[in-house]
């Protein structure tokens, strides 16, 4: 995490990790405040980044402010390491910060993500960075920023529950597949980026530091290690995570988040792990075990 501009073999003409040092300091200060007040959205001076809003400008700015020569960077999009956005952001930091990149969740020190938290449990010392499109869980129902700020300040949290009421009334079930609101540290209601509700329980009491960056909305918030994160629910309607009838058709996992993949135009489809690294590792282990069995 200690930037060492002089030693880094990076792109000529750019500052180490793309952002100038003053901006990084500002973002680090904001992050410290966010960590001090878990779940509270701290405004920051979001910069223009060389990608459009919505592609992860908030996450990239957090990563750029934290990354140093000895970091190992992993980036995922929808759980996958090999999607265009993930590959590009990884290549970006390899180029501007000269860091090692990886697809291995355990080996990474900084993991930037959109939509998912990796299946493999994180450990102390790792930093999880989420790209956030809409940081305020109240914004959907209340357009006035002055009003939502007052609601957060005074813990007036009726609105997210109105959303839950709506989903049961209109659909008969919990509608929020992603971005289900959570109560952080028993104080602030926050939106856990658009991660699926499947990943919500993984935010609770996590050993790793979790940071959330919204570039367009210019907000940073955080969940420090070992902080309580509770998904909101109505009495009589317990919080639910996604379930699938079967297992991943590639690695056979029944515990991971599954993506439905259409395989042909005749209705053929298969369910596979959305976390590609998790899936690949399980398949490797399975093949190794199989090979070991044949040897005997």
């Amino acid at each position, binding site marked *: 995490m200690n930037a060492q501009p002089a030693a880094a073999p990076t792109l000529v003409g750019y500052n180490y990790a793309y952002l100038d040092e003053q901006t990084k300091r500002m973002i680090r200060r904001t992050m410290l405040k966010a960590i001090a007040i878990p779940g509270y959205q701290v405004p920051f001076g979001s910069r223009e980044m060389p990608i459009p809003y919505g592609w992860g400008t908030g996450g990239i700015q957090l990563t750029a402010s934290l990354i140093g020569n000895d970091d190992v960077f992993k980036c995922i999009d929808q759980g996958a390491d090999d999607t265009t956005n993930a590959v590009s952001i990884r290549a970006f930091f390899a180029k501007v910060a000269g860091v090692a990149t990886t697809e291995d969740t355990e080996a990474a020190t900084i993991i930037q993500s959109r939509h998912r938290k990796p299946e493999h449990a994180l450990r102390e010392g790792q930093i999880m960075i989420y790209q956030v499109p809409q940081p305020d869980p109240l914004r959907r129902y209340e357009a006035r920023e002055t009003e939502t700020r007052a609601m957060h300040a005074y813990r*007036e949290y009726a609105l997210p529950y109105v959303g839950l*009421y709506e989903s049961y*009334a209109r659909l008969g079930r919990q509608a929020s597949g992603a971005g289900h609101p959570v109560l952080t540290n028993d104080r602030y209601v926050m939106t856990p980026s658009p991660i699926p509700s499947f990943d919500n329980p993984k935010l609770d009491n996590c050993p790793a530091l979790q940071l959330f960056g919204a570039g367009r909305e210019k907000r940073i918030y955080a969940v420090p290690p070992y902080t309580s994160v509770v998904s909101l629910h109505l009495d009589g309607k317990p919080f639910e995570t996604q379930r699938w009838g079967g297992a991943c058709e590639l690695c056979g996992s029944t515990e991971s988040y599954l993506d439905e993949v259409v395989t042909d135009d005749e209705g053929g489809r298969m369910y596979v792990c959305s976390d590609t690294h998790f899936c690949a590792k399980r398949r490797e282990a399975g093949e190794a075990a199989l090979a070991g069995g044949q040897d005997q």
Partner: protein
Amino acid sequence: MIGNEILLEARGVTVRYGLTVACDNVSLDLRAGEVLGIVGESGSGKTSLLTSLSGRLRPASGEVLFDVGGQGLTDVYGLSEPERRRVRREEWGFVHQNPRDGLRLRISAGGNIVEPLLMCGERHYDTMRGEALEWLSRVELDVARVDQRPSQFSGGMQQRVQIARALAHQPRLVFMDEPTGGLDVSVQARLLDLLRGLVRELGLAVMVVTHDLAVARLLADRLMVMKNGRVVEAGLTDQVLDDPQDAYTQLLVSAAM
């Protein structure tokens, strides 16, 4: 039943916008179960007075006192902001002239009715659902439409949803600003009938602002007539309307006939 205890009291409330004086030294009191009408032409300061009495606009001078939590009269503007907001959402209800000001348009009718319950701490889905359906039938709307959004309702129906939302958490005091404004005459009449029934049935204390003397006559026990920010006449509704003393009130009454 009009109680003895004073619920809301204004003492010399003056509201100014820059040099313009919207409300000049207005004093009044309102008892539990009583309906007070404030009438007057456009620009007479009715709405400014209501806004100020309902804790949304600090008066330039004067005091607004409310019986907070049944603990006796307390200066509304002396309360801390979170406490004032609590009083507004738990002990008061609001009916705006334009239902779009009082409703959340992206949330179903049922959601709008349960929001005040949630604000008061209710969290049980089945209880809230029951209340939503109950209130829809109380304001004579089709309960089958409970999950439709206000935008799918007509103006008169939106106003009914707003009334349900304003009353669902059983407030002790309801502020109404032209509750039947902008509706056609037959819809107005039915809505007034409904409002009158609810007010009597629930024993609500209401402060209703209107320029429509018919509304005032039907709803209000007492009437205050305002002109240029001043109260020119006050008294029992029938007294004021049948035997107006002030020249302006006489003009207003004869204009309405």
